[in-house]
């Protein structure tokens, strides 16, 4: 009933956790946390924080600000770099995970993306990749490749021949025509797409005139972005036949179901993990109960909005 498929990957659950919101620090505390974090019997896959070729410290603080309806962030992809990920983090992930591991990565050039993928391909235990071409908070990685459909096509068409594993391209909502970007990913050889990364967002302290985040414009996520994410999921689903991993403001099972009707084959919980660490489990339970009552499986409902 909850089984779904994301390109080459068969998932036991349509619920996953969005890259960057469910870092492996949770593995350190899961045994001492009095809440069901990382309920692997209820998650379809685990997507790690984005890895870059070299270590990144991230952006200067303050990095987050809570707005009226959602959250601004300018974290800046802090990560230990590819080599440390392979040496130190991957063994822990493989030991702890019983669900498919999807590695999110980014790079500063097409060659860097290719080097990352070729290196990751040599490691055992990775089920798929999420190519981050949509982070709004870094200068060189990611968004430089996700804002132009020709550039995106060039990148994906170089990456696709390098792997037989699931190849997800994570798209930015900050584009004029999401359908065009989805088609570029499809033509390049992606096996699925994920959306949305964060929207451009900004907050200003009206008393001082100072931006709340040093980089001024940053990423906006949480409840407020859900209608935008839903519309972009629908538009992308209309444009391509690739399966979609959708996310953007999902905080309850009803939200997850709306994304499935819009065209998602699976969904990811992101910002809600910070306001309710038990959200993914709660969303799974609610969705399962609903589907049982309805007598439908996920696959019957994908993209059936009327």
């Amino acid at each position, binding site marked *: 009933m909850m089984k779904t498929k994301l390109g080459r990957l068969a998932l036991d659950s349509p619920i996953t956790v969005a890259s*960057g*919101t*469910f*870092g492996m*620090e*949770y593995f*350190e*505390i899961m045994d*001492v*946390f*009095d*809440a069901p974090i990382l309920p692997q019997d209820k998650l379809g896959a685990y997507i790690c924080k984005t890895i870059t070729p070299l270590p990144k*410290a*991230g952006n*200067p*603080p*303050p*990095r*987050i*600000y*809570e707005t009226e309806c959602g*959250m601004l*962030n300018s*974290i800046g992809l*802090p990560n230990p770099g590819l080599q440390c990920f392979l040496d130190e983090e991957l063994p822990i992930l493989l030991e702890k995970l019983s669900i498919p591991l999807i590695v999110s990565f980014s790079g500063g050039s097409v060659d860097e993306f290719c080097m990352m993928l070729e290196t990751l391909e040599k490691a055992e235990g990775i089920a798929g990749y999420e190519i981050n071409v949509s982070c709004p908070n870094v200068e060189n990685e990611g968004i430089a490749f996700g804002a132009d459909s020709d550039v995106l096509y060039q990148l994906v068409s170089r990456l696709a021949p390098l792997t037989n594993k699931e190849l997800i391209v994570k798209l930015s909502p900050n584009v004029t025509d999401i359908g065009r970007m989805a088609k570029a990913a499809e033509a390049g050889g992606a096996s699925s797409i994920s959306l949305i990364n964060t929207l451009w967002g900004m907050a200003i302290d009206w008393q001082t005139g100072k931006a709340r985040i040093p980089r001024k414009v940053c990423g906006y996520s949480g*409840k407020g972005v859900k209608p935008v994410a839903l519309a972009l999921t629908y538009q992308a689903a209309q444009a391509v036949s690739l399966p979609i991993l959708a996310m953007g403001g999902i*905080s309850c099972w009803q939200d997850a179901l709306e994304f499935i009707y819009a065209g998602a084959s699976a969904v990811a919980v992101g*910002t*809600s*993990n*910070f*306001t309710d*660490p*038990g959200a993914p489990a709660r969303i799974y339970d609610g969705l399962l109960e609903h589907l049982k009552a309805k007598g439908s499986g996920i696959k019957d409902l994908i993209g059936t909005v009327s």
Partner: protein
Amino acid sequence: MIWLKTLPIVHAQRLNAQYTVLTVEDKDLAAASHPGMFCELRAPNQEGRQFKPISIYGVEGTRLSFFIKSVGFGTDALCALQDGDTLEMMGPLGNKFPVFAGKKALLVSGGVGYPPLAWLKANLPDGTTVIHLHGGASSEDIFDCDISCTMDGSEGHQGLVTDLVLPLIQEHGINLIYSCGPVGMLKKLTELSGDIPHFVSMEAYMACGVGVCHGCVIPVGDGFQRVCKEGAVFDAKLIDWRQL
């Protein structure tokens, strides 16, 4: 353990228009809490909003209290809670103040930096000489302490707490400093403390509270450290204050 609990408020004490002390009862949380630690708190009508990191003000038996200042929608909702209302909380989180025997300690707090130091003061080892210097904008920001300062002169010395630090260090032979308060105060205090060991409890906007999101970092050494995980208490000399 990190507990995620919804607890009834056994006492909500409105100190003035800005500050409220909320007390809950829970033997697990009380036993695991130490001065310097904090909890993530949320009022029940704030579902979907982020928890707010609030330092623990004190533990008495199985009761924990939180001293909260209204500064935005999350803390406004917390300060409006009354006896019998519920409080969502996650904790205890972060590290604790290191303590040393036989020291002459100066505690310096500003505004809502008061509560962790007030609790630390009550828990320093026997034989510690302690002076708690506390400052704020006006008398509304002043609570029980040894020496107080206000910007408007409505209580205690008129001016900044940092105006009084050097004479106190010299007069009392201070050899340990603890602090919590606005960044400007902490920066100045770090300059003034010289070689004296100085531990500071830092404040930051926070999302997850457990080290996952990397949202609450401060510059430490040549990188960043998380206020929620490596802190909230840091060696003040390791913080790169120029970036704050």
